[in-house]
């Protein structure tokens, strides 16, 4: 039997707190938001990894030219 997803709803006027099952629309929105965010984060992570790889490659080339690690790091900051 699939788990029933629930949400907490607090009425700020009365202080009443209810635990309610998600509607089909809420489940669909939740899944869409999670998928959208996962895609955005994957793209951002890939961009960050590409930048890090380019930086490491550049660093190695600078050291190959005779710079010290500290000198190369300073240039890439």
């Amino acid at each position, binding site marked *: 039997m699939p788990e029933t*997803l*629930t*949400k*907490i*709803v*607090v*009425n*700020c*006027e*009365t*202080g009443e*707190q209810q*635990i309610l099952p*998600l509607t089909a629309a809420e489940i669909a*929105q*939740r*899944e869409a*938001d*999670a998928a*959208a*965010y*996962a895609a*955005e*984060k994957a793209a*951002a*992570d890939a961009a*960050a990894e590409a930048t*890090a790889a380019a930086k490491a490659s550049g660093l190695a080339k600078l050291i190959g030219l005779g710079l010290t690690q500290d000198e190369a790091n300073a240039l890439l900051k």
Partner: protein
Amino acid sequence: MAYNIIATSTVGGGGSTSITFNSIPNTYKDLAIFVSTRTDTVANSDGDYAILESFNSNTSNREQRFLYINRGTNSVLAGYTTSNVALGWSNASNHSSNAFCNGFIYVFNYASTTLQKSVQYDSVTANTTGSYYSSGGIASGMWKNTSAITSLTISTASAAKFIQYSTATLYGISEE
């Protein structure tokens, strides 16, 4: 400024996908929400995410920019998303036992009927497990809508659940 507690909620034993505060009174200048969260999902790297999902259950015209510091890799990630209003960290199930992430959300001019709504979110995970350490993040978000905010929802970006003892407390900020 004075912080006045409007309402607080603690997640029970079954967990919860979200916490919604509704019927928010319009008598304050701004709103603040303190969250302490942990999810039931194994985070793939630096943590899970607790998000300010929506105002007034409206999922249109949301956007935010964020900056995260990953303590595990000492890297910084900047990004943009339209899938929520503001995004902060949450501890995940593979973080240190019983550790919860603390976050602070500030909502400006929430009762205005002429201004679009802007948000700040500051959070940090509490973790000493494995190579994940603790990660921090700041985000600034917008709900491009001039309606007064009467409800808001905190949930997770990963379709996880907040586990028992996660809390959210809503404050009204007055100028006195």
